C-alpha cells in the first residue's frame, strides 16, 4: 500500500500521546476526529496575526479576515461539488444545519397532515428537529425500515413516499452501523415525486469523495469537527433557489440589508443565514483541514480505510463471543459490536485501561438500537490515521475483556 500512514500519524500531535499510561489508540473518529497540526497552526496563526471581525471593518485587517473566511466557503463548495459557493452556509455543526432547515424551510412548507419520511437508522439529530417541527405543524413522521444486516429496505421506503410526503431526510452513512445508503437512487426517486430531500452527510464527508451536485439532494449537511477541523464549524449545503426562497433563521447583525423600525430587509444568501459574528477561527481551521484532505486525496483515504475495515472485520469476527451489529455490504469504516456476557460500557472501560478509545452506548441512535435488538453497542471507527497494529491491539484487548468476565 502506497499510503504512508506513519507520515500521516506524525502530522496529528495527539496521536503521540498516552492514555492511562499506554500509547493512545484512538478508534472514535466517528464521534469526533483528531486534528492535524496544520489545522491547529492555522487557527493559532489567524488569532496571532490576522484576526478581526468580518464583513464589517473598512480597515485592512478586517478585509483580510473576511477574505480568508470567504475563501473557505469557496474551498468547501469545491470540496463537496457545490455549483456555487453561495450554496454553502456556515453553521456550528450538522445538528444546527438540520435545525436551520426545519425552522425555516420546514415552517413554511410543512403543514397539517403533511408527512416527513425518515429512516430508523437516523442519528437523533435527524429525528428530533423533525419531531419538533411535526408537532408544531400537525404533521406526521413516517419511518423507513431496515433489514437485520442494517441495510435500508428501499421498497418500504419508497412505499412511504406518498402525495402528502413533503420531505425525505436520511443519512448518507449510518453513524452506528456504517451502512452506506444509495443516496442518488433515493434522491432521484423522491425528486420525481416533488419531494424535498435532506441528506445527513456527517459520517460520509470524512471518508469518501462527495459530490452534492451529482447526488442531487436539496440539502446536504455535515460537521467540520468530524472532517479533522475544529469544533464550531459545520456546513449546510442547499440548492441556491431553495435557500433564496427560504425565510431567515436567526435575526441580527450581518444577515440584513437594511434595518429600520418600519421594516427590515434581509441580506442575500448566504449572509441571510449567518446572523451575528460566526466562529471565524474555526472556519479558518476548517479550511486548513479541507486543504489537508485535498492534499492526501479522498479517493486514497477511502481506499486505505476500506483496507482497514476488511482487516478489522476479519479479525474481530474471530474474537470468541463477539457479534458485529451492522453487516451491510456497503459500509464505511465503522464496526459496532457486542460481546456475549459483557455490557458495552464494561468493554469501553476495559479498553480505556489499555489506552484504546472507542464509543460504548446507543450512539445517539436509540430507535436503531431498539431495531437491532441491543440496548447499546461498542463501536470502533477507523480513519486514515489508524493502522492494522491498532486493530491488533483492539483484538487483543477484547480477548482480555472476555477472559476477565468469563
Amino acid at each position, binding site marked *: 500500500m502506497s499510503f504512508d500512514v506513519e507520515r500521516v500519524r506524525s502530522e496529528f500531535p495527539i496521536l503521540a500521546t498516552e492514555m*492511562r499510561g499506554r500509547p493512545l489508540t484512538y478508534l472514535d473518529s466517528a464521534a469526533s476526529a483528531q486534528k492535524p497540526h496544520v489545522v491547529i497552526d492555522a487557527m493559532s496563526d489567524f488569532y496571532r496575526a490576522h484576526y478581526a471581525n468580518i464583513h464589517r471593518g473598512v480597515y485592512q485587517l478586517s478585509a483580510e479576515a473576511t477574505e480568508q473566511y470567504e475563501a473557505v466557503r469557496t474551498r468547501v463548495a469545491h470540496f463537496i461539488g457545490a455549483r456555487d459557493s453561495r450554496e454553502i452556509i456556515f453553521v456550528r455543526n450538522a445538528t444546527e444545519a438540520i435545525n436551520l432547515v426545519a425552522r425555516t424551510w420546514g415552517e413554511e412548507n410543512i403543514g397539517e397532515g403533511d408527512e416527513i419520511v425518515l429512516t430508523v437508522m437516523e442519528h437523533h439529530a435527524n429525528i428530533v428537529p423533525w419531531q419538533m417541527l411535526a408537532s408544531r405543524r400537525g404533521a406526521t413522521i413516517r419511518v423507513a425500515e431496515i433489514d437485520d444486516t442494517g441495510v435500508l429496505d428501499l421498497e418500504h421506503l419508497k412505499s412511504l413516499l406518498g402525495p402528502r410526503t413533503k420531505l425525505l431526510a436520511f443519512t448518507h452513512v449510518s453513524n452506528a452501523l456504517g451502512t452506506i445508503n444509495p443516496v442518488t437512487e433515493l434522491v432521484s426517486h423522491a425528486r420525481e415525486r416533488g419531494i424535498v430531500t435532506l441528506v445527513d452527510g456527517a459520517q460520509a464527508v470524512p471518508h469518501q469523495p462527495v459530490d452534492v451536485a451529482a447526488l442531487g439532494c436539496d440539502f446536504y449537511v455535515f460537521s467540520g469537527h468530524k472532517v479533522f477541523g475544529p469544533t464550531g464549524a459545520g456546513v449546510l449545503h442547499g440548492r441556491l433557489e431553495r435557500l433564496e426562497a427560504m425565510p431567515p433563521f436567526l435575526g441580527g447583525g450581518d444577515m440584513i440589508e437594511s434595518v429600520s423600525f418600519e421594516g427590515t430587509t434581509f441580506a442575500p444568501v448566504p449572509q441571510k443565514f449567518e446572523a451575528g459574528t460566526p466562529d471565524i477561527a474555526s472556519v479558518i481551521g476548517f479550511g486548513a483541514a479541507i486543504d489537508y484532505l485535498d492534499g492526501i486525496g479522498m479517493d486514497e483515504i477511502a481506499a486505505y480505510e476500506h483496507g482497514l475495515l476488511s482487516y478489522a472485520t476479519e479479525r474481530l469476527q474471530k474474537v470468541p463471543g463477539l457479534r458485529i451489529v451492522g453487516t451491510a455490504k456497503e459500509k464505511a469504516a465503522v464496526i459496532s459490536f457486542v460481546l456475549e*456476557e*459483557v*455490557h*458495552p*460500557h*464494561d468493554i469501553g*472501560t*476495559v479498553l*480505556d*485501561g489499555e489506552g484504546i478509545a472507542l464509543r*460504548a*452506548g*446507543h450512539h445517539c441512535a436509540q430507535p436503531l*438500537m431498539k431495531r437491532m435488538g441491543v*440496548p*447499546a453497542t461498542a463501536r470502533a471507527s477507523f480513519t486514515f490515521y489508524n493502522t492494522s497494529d491498532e486493530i491488533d491491539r483492539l483484538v487483543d484487548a477484547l480477548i*482480555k475483556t472476555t477472559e*476477565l*468476565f468469563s
Partner: protein
Amino acid sequence: MDDLRELYQETILGHNKKPRNFRVMEDASHEADGHNPLCGDEFTLYARVDTDGVLEDVTFRGSGCAISKASASLMTEHVKGKRLCEVHADFDRFHELVTSPPGEEPKLDGLGKLAVFAGVREYPMRVKCATLAWHALRAALEEGGKTAKTE
C-alpha cells in the same frame, strides 16, 4: 490490567454473573425504576417496608453493565433488614465513597463488602453506574416510586 482489577474485583464480577435478590417482588410496598440513559442501564427496584420502618425485603430486576448490576446486587444484601434511617445513611456513605478523590484514603466504615466499589473513583464516567440502584432505592422509599435517572 492491574488497574482494571481494582475496578473489576472478583466480588463485582461474581455479583454481575450471579446477582443476588434478582427477582420481581409481587408484594412490594415501594418500587421505582432506575434508568441511565447514557448506557441504557434499566433496573426496577422493589422494597417492602414493615410498619416499624424496617426494610424487610429488597429486590431488583433489569439489565445493565457489570458495575451497575453488581452494585444493585450488593446493595440489596447490604440494606436488607435495616431501618430506613440507616439505609439513607448508607446511601450517603456509598455516594461519598465513589465520588471521593482517588488519591485519598477511602472511608470504608460501615460499608462492609461495598468497599469493593472504591475502584470506581478512578473512573468518573462509571460513578453513575455504581450509584444507579441506590438512586432508584431512594426514589422508591422517599417518593413512593417513580423513575430515578442518573442524568
